[in-house]
């Protein structure tokens, strides 16, 4: 593969995440830049493990469909590929299929006939255990070595793809590529790398553009940027001329959601931006040179979601001045009363359940003691009951209900009623979804753990 005739590759990154909302006029602005591909991600781990565990999107179907319709329209108009990474927030197999069905629905409604590639990177537990037994699984700090029991507890496991599976889909002539879990920079860097752009600038451009126009004066992932790769570096500017990219903002983006501001480990190597220079080319355009890529043995990061504990919550608002004068004393008394009540009413072993009280307006976020002399105006008190089954969590919450809503601060006081916000007073919240894996798996080939399906929308069976 070679770079295009003018030796540059332009990629339109329309959004920080598919479905966050788009402005239709951005597509016209973007296509005026004559891009060679459209690339974006549709998720990340930021919002927690629920989306991997449940196989659902964080953004609702209508929002995703509206944005996808605009992007598929742009794909048709320009005749350029559309690459989507980390489908439906988590990139599990069901997340990919959910996105595929929306794409097919839009194609049917509009008479589009794209060639579609699906890239699946969900992993079977048996295969992860086999890799573990072969010594190909390595922990990342702060977690220790992987325990087989943890693998067994996972509801779903995905491996983070690099750009190579996208290359395979592009080689096959795909118009729309729907990827499972993928490194955010990788899906944006993929097309430029396929066209022969140097790895350092391609990965760096991918990192800066992964949040759409957030690193520009647009300041939002609802708007897009154009990144242009050449043999020595990359340039970036917002698609809408009303906004600008500034050198400081582009340089600062490596700080965002990233542990190390200089180095970013990715499948197959590490991006190093230590020696980068950021040039303000025009009011709205920044050029970046000096991005380096250090190839390393190919690894894929594993992400797993567990959900073996369940929660029921209750909430009250408290304006009682006696309680507000002594929040910690109230908390401690309540914690003891609820614990005793849970054991006496249900007979449950105290080792298997947990009751946590969060006093919002006092220390609900920190859990730490506020400065001496602090007096809250109100307290929102949330009770979180965690147990091995939803039934037990619910049973404990119901048993505690009269105490949680009516416990006096001191014996002898009239029975208070704290501010109930709803009835019934408890909410069965469902499983506690938690990320359990922070490990990488070594592979001999970037496609080893990836399954690719190719088909034409016009010939697809109705979903």
């Amino acid at each position, binding site marked *: 593969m070679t770079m295009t005739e003018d030796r540059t590759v332009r990629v339109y990154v329309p959004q920080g995440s598919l479905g966050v909302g788009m402005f239709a006029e951005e597509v016209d602005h973007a296509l005026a830049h004559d891009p060679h591909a459209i690339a974006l991600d549709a998720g990340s781990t930021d*919002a*927690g*493990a629920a989306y991997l565990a449940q196989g659902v999107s964080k953004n609702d179907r209508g929002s995703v469909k509206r944005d996808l319709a605009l992007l598929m329209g742009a794909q048709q108009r320009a005749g350029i590929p559309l690459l989507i990474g980390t489908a439906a927030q988590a990139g599990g197999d069901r997340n990919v299929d959910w996105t595929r069905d929306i794409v097919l629905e839009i194609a049917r409604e509009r008479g589009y006939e794209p060639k579609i590639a699906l890239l699946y990177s969900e992993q079977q537990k048996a295969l992860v255990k086999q890799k573990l037994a072969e010594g190909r699984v390595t922990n990342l700090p702060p977690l220790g070595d992987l325990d087989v029991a943890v693998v067994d507890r996972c509801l779903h496991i995905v491996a983070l793809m690099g750009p190579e599976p996208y290359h395979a889909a592009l080689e096959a002539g795909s118009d729309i590529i729907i990827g499972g879990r993928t490194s955010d920079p990788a899906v944006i860097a993929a097309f430029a790398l396929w066209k022969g752009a140097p790895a350092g600038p391609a990965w760096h451009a991918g990192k800066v553009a992964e949040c759409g126009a957030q690193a520009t004066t647009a300041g939002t992932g609802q708007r897009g940027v154009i990144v242009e790769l050449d043999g020595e570096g990359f340039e970036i500017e917002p698609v809408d001329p009303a906004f600008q990219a500034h050198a400081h903002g582009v340089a600062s983006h490596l*700080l965002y959601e990233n542990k190390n501001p*200089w180095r970013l480990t990715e499948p197959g190597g590490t991006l190093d931006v230590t020696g980068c220079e950021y040039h303000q080319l025009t009011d709205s355009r920044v050029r970046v040179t000096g991005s380096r890529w250090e190839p390393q043995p190919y690894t894929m990061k594993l992400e797993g979601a567990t959900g073996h504990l369940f*929660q029921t919550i209750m909430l009250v608002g408290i304006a009682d001045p006696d309680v507000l004068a002594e929040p910690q004393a109230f908390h401690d008394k309540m914690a003891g009363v609820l614990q005793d009540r849970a054991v006496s009413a249900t007979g449950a072993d105290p080792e298997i359940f947990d009751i946590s009280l969060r006093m919002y307006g006092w220390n609900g*976020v920190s859990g730490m003691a506020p400065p001496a002399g602090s007096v809250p105006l109100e307290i929102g008190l949330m009770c979180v009951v965690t147990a091995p089954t939803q039934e037990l969590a619910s049973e404990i919450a119901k048993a505690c209900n009269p105490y949680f809503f009516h416990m006096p601060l001191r014996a002898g006081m009239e029975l208070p009623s704290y501010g109930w916000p709803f009835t019934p007073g408890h909410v069965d919240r469902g499983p506690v979804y938690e*990320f359990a894996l922070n490990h990488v798996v070594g592979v001999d080939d970037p496609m080893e753990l990836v399954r690719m399906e190719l088909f034409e929308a016009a010939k697809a069976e109705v979903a």
Partner: protein
Amino acid sequence: MTATSGATRVKDVCRQVRSKVAGPFWVTIDLMFDTQENYDQYAESPALSAEAIGAIYRIDPAAISLYPVPQLRVLKISYPRRSPQGGVEERDLHSGQQYAYLLDHPLD
């Protein structure tokens, strides 16, 4: 967090302080200093050492990484979460509020 009224605090020398998860197991905090002078004076001062940060967040100082970024006048602080994102005791899933406990931290 026992700032006396005369002490210079983090919020006095930063134009912005923010925090966010960096993957499900790490928190990262960016202290964006307002002037070069303040960056030079405070970014690598003992008041912002791993020991001092560890005391605020109850984290082993050995697990804390400090990255001074002079080009951007930023001190980046990264440390492991006390429990993974979304666990039983979760109070700040994005770790987006963790910066708040640094704002009144005295620097001298």
